[in-house]
């Protein structure tokens, strides 16, 4: 390295801030052995400090910071932990809702074994009743035929609750029920429910 090369390197040297920068180490060492270069470096560094001080001495106009703060737009939340918390809250909320819905569906399934109950009401041909809201004495003949043919039969209580009537598993009870079509009866049977549908497994029919 000669003096000119060292000068070219040290032209960028700013003093202490660049001391740790290895690109200057060789030239700084060289300057120690060259008094003229050392003097030039000293002047150069002093000149840097002067220019820096003059530039940094420029004051921004009064009120600029207040103006910036006043015109601040509504900031987007840049707090990632808060965004994470919000996302977690949404996720938990959705999960809880889904679980509740699932639980609600499950809630209509029997949680204990079927219970024996007495139900009083009109024997219905469920197909005509659900499809066309047909019931009562005017529909008695149709209901009788439909039930005998094996279409589902039901019983509707005074309160409006409807049960699907079935026999024991594997047995059809339609032939017996057909005789009571559109009549008011009391049925003793085992109540079960699934997916919102109530079912009564007939044990005994009493005509009122």
């Amino acid at each position, binding site marked *: 390295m000669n003096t*000119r090369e060292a*000068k*070219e390197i040290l*032209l*960028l040297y*700013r003093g202490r*801030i660049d001391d740790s*920068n290895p690109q200057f180490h060789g030239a700084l060492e060289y300057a120690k052995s060259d008094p003229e270069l050392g003097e030039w470096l000293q*002047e150069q560094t*002093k*000149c*840097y400090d*002067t*220019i*820096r001080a*003059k*530039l*940094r*001495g*420029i*004051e*921004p*106009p009064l009120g*600029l*910071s207040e*103006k*910036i*703060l006043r*015109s*601040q*737009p509504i*900031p*987007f*939340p*840049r*707090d*990632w932990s808060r965004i994470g918390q919000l996302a977690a809250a949404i996720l938990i909320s959705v999960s809880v809702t889904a679980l509740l819905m699932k639980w609600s569906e499950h809630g209509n399934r029997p949680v204990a074994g079927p219970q024996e109950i007495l139900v009083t009401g009109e024997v219905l041909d469920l197909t005509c009743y659900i499809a066309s809201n047909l019931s009562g004495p005017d529909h008695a003949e149709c209901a009788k035929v439909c039930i005998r043919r094996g279409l589902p039969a039901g019983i509707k209580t005074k309160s409006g609750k409807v049960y699907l009537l079935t026999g024991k598993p594997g047995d059809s009870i339609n032939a017996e029920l057909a005789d009571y079509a559109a009549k008011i009866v009391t049925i003793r049977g085992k109540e079960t429910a699934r997916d919102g549908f109530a079912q009564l497994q007939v044990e005994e029919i009493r005509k009122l």
Partner: protein
Amino acid sequence: MTGEMSADLEFEDLVKLYYGDLYRFGLSLTGSEADAADLTQETFYIWANKGHQLQKAASVKGWLFTTLHREFLKTCRRRNRFLNESIDESTADLPNMPPDCAERVDSRTLLRILREIAEDFRAPLVLYYMEHLSYKEIADVLALPLGTVQSRISRAKIQLLRRLSESKLPLEQAK
């Protein structure tokens, strides 16, 4: 980088910490107080809208300077006054200048002389003088290769020193 901060630094703190530096940078780029104030304001406006995208809180200062410089370049393009000038100074022409040449000029004269330096060269030179950024950080702010930044600073600095030594001095003018 100087000015490291916690991730949850509030907008107001950020403004108080950097608006002066940004204004000075803007002023040295534009030479106009009004334009510098606008650039500073615009920079913080952009920060308020997009700053959350910045992952490293430590690089906030660099991000702000980059944004201001980018906005300055946009303004230049809009006004069609972006000049890709070059500087003929060579490091072989290191000036022998009076030791007190910088002391004899005031800030306004210094800014005027800076304005005479081509824009491509002025920005790295200003960052070199005003902010204690490493050369790598200056290169990142200006999106330039490190070698280009150092070369531009060297050439711009020679030109600045030459013009300082040639400039008429306020004291002499008064005499």
